[in-house]
């Protein structure tokens, strides 16, 4: 615990100090003046930060919805005891273990307009090539699809663990009472699966909120900052423009937002597991 305090609390405290000071690579040797709330007011008034927040929000919403719909389907499929189940499960697990840098670059190549394999397949079935990463109206979808590829299996595996722990009796009873498969799913499976769903949701919210590497290597936040998430925004101010006081202020707002989301979700989890 002491180690944890040292390696985490200290940097975070230091970051808070930074957030109220002006620290840039050009000027820090002449001293680090106290600037009060200036960094924060600049942040909120600047359009880029709110823009990055909106981008992150859009990305989170659509990615998570898709991942849960597909992940639920996948979990139900894997729960069917088909032959070769264990092999399928290990293969489906692979995307979530992959190195993010490699994922970002591989998809960047696959999305390439002229020689990408995605357009090659599309052309084969008679669809015109799409400029996946340079067309402003498509790029968000491209980024979301990569995240869905990357993490649907994570959602599916958590839900599957939940499915396999469900009691048999209520399902038997419902079948005898003549409930259809759909009714059983909506009125029994989903409510009983609530804890597993919430846990998976907590992790996906947190991971999509802080996403950096995959998007950075796929699009670098472009074109025209269309895919600049909050993490990429802080990176740009901190380590391209080297305005670390400003970046610290932005990361504090990030932590605040994350904590609120995490507290809401963990409280919900705590409530369902004590029921």
């Amino acid at each position: 615990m002491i180690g944890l305090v040292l390696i985490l609390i200290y940097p975070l405290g230091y970051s808070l100090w930074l957030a109220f000071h002006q620290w840039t690579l050009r000027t820090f040797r002449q001293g680090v003046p106290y600037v009060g709330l200036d960094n924060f007011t600049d942040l909120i008034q600047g359009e880029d930060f709110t823009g990055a927040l909106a981008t992150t929000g859009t990305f989170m919403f659509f990615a998570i919805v898709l991942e849960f719909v597909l992940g639920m389907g996948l979990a139900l499929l894997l729960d069917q005891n088909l032959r070769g189940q264990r092999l399928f499960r290990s293969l489906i697990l692979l995307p979530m273990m992959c190195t993010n840098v490699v994922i970002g670059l591989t998809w960047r190549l696959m999305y390439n307009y002229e020689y990408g394999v995605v357009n090659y397949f599309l052309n084969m079935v008679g669809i015109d090539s799409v400029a996946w990463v340079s067309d402003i109206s498509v790029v968000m979808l491209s980024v979301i699809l990569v995240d869905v590829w990357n993490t649907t299996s994570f959602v599916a595996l958590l839900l599957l663990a939940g499915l396999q722990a469900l009691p048999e009796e209520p399902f038997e009873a419902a079948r005898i009472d003549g409930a259809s498969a759909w009714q059983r799913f909506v009125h029994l499976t989903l409510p009983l699966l609530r804890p597993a769903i919430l846990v998976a949701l907590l992790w996906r919210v947190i991971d999509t909120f802080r996403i950096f590497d995959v998007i950075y290597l796929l699009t670098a936040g472009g074109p025209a900052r269309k895919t600049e998430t909050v993490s990429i925004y802080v990176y740009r101010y901190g380590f391209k423009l080297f305005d670390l006081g400003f970046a610290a202020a932005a990361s504090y707002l990030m932590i605040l937002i994350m904590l609120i989301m995490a507290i809401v979700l963990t409280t919900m989890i705590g409530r369902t597991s004590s029921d």
Partner: protein
Amino acid sequence: MHTPTLHRLSRSALYVLTLMAVIISVFPIFYLLLLSIKPAHLTFDPGTWIFEPTLANYEAVLEGGDFVKYMINSLTISFATMLVALALGTLAAYGFARFKFRGRFWLRMSMLIPQMLPPITIIVPLYVLFMNLDFLDTRHGMVIAYLTFTLPLATWMMTGFFEDVPVELEESAMVDGASRLGALLRVSLPIVAPGLAATAVLAFIYSWNEFLYAVILTGRESRTLPVTITSYMTNKAILWGRIAAAGSIVLIPVLAFAMLTQRYLVRGLAGGAVKG
């Protein structure tokens, strides 16, 4: 008469769907491996699937620049991180699992906070701190940076595994004269060994895969492989063949480890949290 046929039909439909999911999951990885052994003149030809494989890309990667040095960096940093995280994390987890105290649920949940923090928010202060301490571009600096997320991860996972060990086993060992530490080492630790292995694998993989800390906190000396891969994107061209070869070198051990421990990985990740 109808039901069995229908049943068989829907059964095959399920198979088709599962296979589709498998193919979509595996295809990009397969494509990367395929590209890494493609001859240079076919790199920009997605339609060619059969060709004479070549190791030219691997040779270029291993011989050119400091790839091997950076590979050793990656191995050392990930391994050291794993060992420290495991040693400290196991002890902390044992405490969480065995001693009941007030606010345990919240304290345990708070162990998740470091894992939830966006890495970029920790890097900003770490960068300035490391600069003052002269830790920038050093391997021990990277180990410290990686402990910020591997230590909570190890504690979290191990707590779940320890909770599955019946307390009675340890108590009977202690009645027989073993100390608490002795009971932990000789009774509980062997039982949680598979979980320990999975935790080790995961801590290693997380450090091995990490990019954001590495790109900011390392330079010529302590650079790791994920950063090295991006160096094949030069101003003039993106060397896709080399990216594919280097990417495969990074990916293969990770995927092999993940396949070996997958059962425990899933449990560990879901583990404690699902039980609450």
